[in-house]
């Protein structure tokens, strides 16, 4: 029978440092996937996996043995990634090549648009290029918006999980998701084809993943 995560944690806390290897082997791939979705970069994700486990090891005394280790580790990974994205954003701000245009629809008048010299809408119908546009648009979100959107849209985490993981109020978590979608729409809708008015009278939560 496989030893539970909690039992391994207890073993590490008792001084068996090498037992931590079991937890690394069990969880590093899933943590890699989570971090990759948020950073979009394999090398960054691999380094952040190590940082996540290092932070987890150092905080192991605070882990409650009755709790779920993977959930606890997931929270550490998300927060470590959020710190990383925040630091990177600060660093990249001076290198930003996107044009800032005067957009009357933007709430703060500083909405960032994709480069004006980019390919036209016809070419963007190609899915590879659309994926590129989506990746570019995701890169324009704030770190908190990106993390909240990834959790809600790509991982199907609930607002409650997002607020607990990021230590936010539920309303702030919802707002982060909304702001992310709002920015993505502003970036991506100009490239989308016409949308037929929907006929069905029922919509409720159909797309929630």
């Amino acid at each position: 029978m496989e030893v539970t995560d909690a039992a391994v944690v207890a073993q590490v806390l008792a001084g068996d440092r090498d037992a931590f290897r079991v937890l690394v082997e069990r969880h590093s791939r899933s943590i890699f996937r989570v971090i990759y979705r948020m950073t979009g970069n394999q090398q960054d994700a691999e380094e952040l996996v190590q940082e996540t486990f290092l932070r987890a090891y150092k905080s192991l005394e605070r882990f409650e043995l009755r709790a779920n280790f993977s959930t606890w580790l997931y929270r550490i990974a998300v927060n470590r990634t959020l710190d990383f994205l925040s630091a990177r954003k600060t660093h990249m701000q001076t290198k930003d090549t996107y044009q800032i245009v005067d957009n009357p629809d933007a709430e703060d008048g500083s909405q960032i648009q994709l480069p004006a010299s980019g390919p036209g809408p016809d070419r963007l119908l190609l899915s590879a290029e659309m994926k590129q546009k989506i990746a570019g648009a995701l890169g324009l979100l704030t770190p908190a918006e990106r993390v909240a959107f990834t959790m809600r849209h790509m991982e199907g985490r609930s607002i409650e999980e997002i607020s607990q993981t990021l230590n936010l109020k539920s309303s702030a978590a919802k707002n982060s998701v909304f702001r992310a979608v709002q920015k993505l729409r502003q970036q991506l809708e100009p490239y989308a084809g016409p949308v037929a008015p929907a006929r069905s009278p029922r919509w409720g939560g159909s797309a929630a993943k």
Partner: protein
Amino acid sequence: MNHLSEEQIVLHYYGDAEEASEVERHLAACPECRTEFARVQSMLQQIEPLEVPEPAAGFEEKTWLNLRDRLPEKGSFLRRLLQGQQKWALAGAMAVLLAAAFLAGRFWPRPGPQIAQQPPSQVNPQRVVLVAVGDHLERSQMLLVEIMNADAKGPINFSSEQAEARELLDSNHLYRVSSQQAGDPQVARLLDQLGRVLAEVANGPADVSPEDLQQVRRTIQSEGLLFKVRVVSSEVNSRVRRPELSGGSVNQRL
């Protein structure tokens, strides 16, 4: 009739809108909001989860190997010693030898006038301990000064300070035990206080926030640790320089 806000529409897509049934009723009755919802739906459906590449084979092994040496020890001193970590075993053996040599030197019958005939290069074990403690205190003092003078305006990467603290922490315990056994309670007490701060730095996060840094500084200041380390370090060094003083404990200035 007021239309739904963009936020209501977006949150409704995810099933997170407040008063969902009212939102649904409105959508059923309002073609404009339905079109807006369809736009949101169409755009979001294009954003699929990123395809995650599989890490290379041996990813777990590589992660563990990169991680292993960065993990500080946990658990009791005795257990760590018994687990046979090479560094600890070596340091432990050295400490035991030093303490034994020191005690032997202290309680061995003094040879009287013949001592003058012994070669002057003979190693005094107590002096060896003093030299080691003196070095340890000097390194600790430098680390404490770095912490006190670090720029606290934003988050700081403390990984090099952490590595130094971990190294000092390893030897700190041994010197404390040796000092206690050598009948030097002042030094032992100081090393005890120092050990707590070293542990706080060694086990803290690598990226330290200004608040965390302030907390460590408060601990250092509240115990007057930097001052005590300076005083004892200078006392120990003067005993190292003047071997005739090395028999007693440090004075009661602390």
